[in-house]
């Protein structure tokens, strides 16, 4: 009995479902550090979730969009991403944009006077951009008023030929362009989502005490895709143009976040520190084909307290990254197969349910008030084991279809 309790989570089923109203947590204060509130883009805590522009997609659609994002990451890392910006710019926006859908939002201030903008925060990309007036070609519907650089006293365009303009190449993966000697950026997210516009600098306000002059960002004039009512993207990758690098003098490339356990609660994004004393660290690794990703090294998986027998080469062949913009963790095929098999063995008492898109291990909990699920631990380089929270093990479509929230890559070398 004790072993079962130590190696499993017992949950009230109601705790797996988000409520209709927002139940915010107080932001955990870190002394002398700046913290922003994090909300799920499609939950009741997000102001984007009001009205048509922010209507939440179905879980099936969210998972399809997630698959599209993962494909674009694999494509980028394998060097086969031959989608040209000119191609992307001529494509109509359609479902499956690889920006993904299960994203989290923070609000920052831009310009003078400051205008608040709700941006998707993304550790898997680098350039911060927002839609800008006059939206010369196209802007999608967003909740906040669209930023107008002509109404800001601190906005400046970046000139063509400058080293800053050249730096766009690594931050966006695209060759830059010029319009009347003004630097033009273009960034696309795999298939149809993209933003093209002027590269500029502006005053960025994180909090009243943390203000950055000369923050380089994209002022989008042609923006299309499923950005779900957000005003754009906050790039937190490792490239020199990311917000993390641009603020490194103050925060020394140190930031932390907590993603809320459900879409009806809030989390935080903190720059310059972290709050927990019990942090377990693993070394960052660099993926040579994508140095702006945060690479890490999986070394093993445990299910229900038992470490699975998976060869080290399964993990080392593939490598790994951590990405706030991908919803479902993808594992090498052999690792996922072992995880699924062990999880199923410990869940035989529950009736199964049909697959949900990429999630193939699902259960029908209709006749239960509480359920007991095995704990899952992930091992990383450095010998650390991280216990996944119960809300990170299951993906709930409805009580009659609750799925193991992991998926396998199709190729062992992905």
């Amino acid at each position, binding site marked *: 009995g004790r072993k079962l309790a130590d190696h499993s989570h017992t949950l009230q089923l109601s705790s797996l479902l988000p409520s209709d109203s927002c139940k915010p947590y107080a932001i955990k204060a870190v002394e002398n550090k700046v913290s922003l509130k994090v909300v799920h883009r499609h939950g009741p805590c997000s102001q984007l979730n009001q009205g048509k522009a922010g209507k939440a997609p179905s879980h099936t659609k969210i998972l399809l969009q997630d698959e599209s994002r993962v494909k674009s990451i694999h494509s980028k890392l394998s060097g086969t991403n031959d989608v040209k910006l000119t191609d992307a710019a001529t494509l109509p926006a359609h479902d499956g944009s690889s920006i993904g859908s299960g994203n989290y939002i923070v609000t920052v201030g831009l310009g003078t006077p400051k205008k608040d903008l709700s941006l998707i925060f993304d550790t898997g990309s680098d350039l911060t951009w927002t839609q800008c007036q006059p939206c010369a070609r196209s802007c999608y519907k967003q909740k906040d008023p669209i930023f107008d650089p002509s109404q800001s006293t601190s906005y400046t365009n970046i000139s063509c030929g400058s080293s800053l303009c050249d730096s766009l190449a690594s931050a966006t993966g695209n060759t830059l362009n010029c319009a009347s000697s003004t630097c033009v950026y273009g960034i696309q997210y795999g298939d149809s989502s993209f933003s093209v516009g002027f590269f500029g600098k502006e005053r960025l306000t994180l909090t009243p005490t943390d203000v950055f002059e000369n923050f380089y960002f994209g002022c989008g004039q042609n923006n299309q895709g499923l950005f779900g009512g957000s005003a754009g993207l906050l790039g937190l990758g490792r490239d020199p143009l990311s917000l993390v690098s641009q603020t490194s003098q103050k925060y020394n490339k140190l930031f932390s976040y907590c993603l809320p356990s459900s879409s009806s609660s809030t989390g935080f994004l903190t720059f310059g520190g972290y709050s927990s004393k019990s*942090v377990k660290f693993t*070394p960052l690794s660099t993926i040579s084909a994508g140095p702006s990703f945060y690479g890490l090294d999986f070394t093993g998986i445990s299910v229900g307290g038992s470490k699975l027998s998976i060869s080290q080469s399964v993990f080392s062949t593939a490598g790994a990254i951590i990405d706030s913009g*991908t919803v479902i963790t993808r594992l090498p095929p052999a690792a996922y197969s072992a995880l699924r098999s062990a999880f199923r063995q410990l869940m035989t008492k529950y009736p199964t349910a049909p697959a949900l898109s990429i999630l193939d291990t699902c259960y029908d909990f209709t006749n239960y008030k509480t359920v007991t699920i095995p704990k899952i631990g992930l091992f990383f380089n450095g010998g650390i084991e991280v216990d996944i929270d119960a809300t990170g093990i299951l993906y709930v479509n409805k009580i009659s279809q609750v799925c193991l*929230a992991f998926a396998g*890559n199709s190729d062992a070398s992905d």
Partner: protein
Amino acid sequence: VAILGNVQQRSLEVVYDGAAGKVGFAAGGCS
């Protein structure tokens, strides 16, 4: 690559220390 997605990061405090070259996790770091 394998990808650690955001569902599995829920309720963990995730720490990125780019200068020291490490990523950290704290269970229950949100409450």
